[in-house]
């Protein structure tokens, strides 16, 4: 943990004070939802007849698998975006490179989440196997 004197002004520069409690709560909500959805995901994989393409695609065609999978993607990528941002805010002190890192994190996490969501939709809405 960095407990130097830059910590307080650095945190203040990132978010207005009234947003801090909301941000804190959101982090914890997303931690819980990511954890629960991952338990569902890993148990589901374990129950599949195999991890071949057909078994996985067949499973994700079911809305009862596709919808929690979409929720898992949103929850997980939101959670990891907030987490990586905290790491950057704590360790990258120079304003320019901090901004650049935050832009990269935001872009890549949204891009990766977009790829994952599109893939799930493609499988779930696709007509052939």
């Amino acid at each position, binding site marked *: *943990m960095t*407990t*130097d*004197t*830059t910590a307080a*002004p*650095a945190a203040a520069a990132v978010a207005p004070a009234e947003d801090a409690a909301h941000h804190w709560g959101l982090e*914890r909500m997303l*931690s819980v939802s990511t*954890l629960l959805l*991952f338990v569902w995901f890993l148990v589901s994989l374990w129950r599949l007849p195999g991890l*071949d*393409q*057909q078994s*996985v*695609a067949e499973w*994700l065609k079911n809305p009862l698998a596709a919808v929690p999978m979409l929720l898992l993607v949103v929850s*997980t*990528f939101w959670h*990891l975006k907030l*987490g*990586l941002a905290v*790491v950057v805010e704590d360790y990258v*002190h120079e*304003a320019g490179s901090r901004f650049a890192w935050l832009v990269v994190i935001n872009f890549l*996490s949204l891009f*990766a989440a977009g*790829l*994952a969501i*599109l*893939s*799930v939709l*493609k*499988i779930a809405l*696709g007509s052939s196997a």
Partner: protein
Amino acid sequence: MTRNPDRPLSPHLTIWKWGPHMLVSILHRITGAGLATVGAGVFVWWLVAVAGGADSYAYFALWATWKWSLIVWIGLTWAFFQHLLSGLRHFVMDAGAGFELKTNKFWAVMTLVWAILLTAAVWAYIILGRLA
């Protein structure tokens, strides 16, 4: 950022030694960063490969079942359990509990021990299942 370098730091800031709570704290960040990059990357690749059909999945499976990939899989398994357990510990501490020195140290060590035990259990299950 705006610290006046002429002013001294509090002397206590330089007096500390490593403890399990510090290791667990930094491991929470390291495993989180690892899961967010390597773990998320593999996860997205897997989903894109499933959506891409048999050929793209075969290419993913080729890499996923490569013998050296086992290091990545076991590493991700351990990172998952370590991050999960230290995350649960953080929930307890967020509630204001578990700050007494002995309790705090005990549960910090427990997250380290159980992350390794659970990783070993999962891979013993997978490997023994393959052999059976």
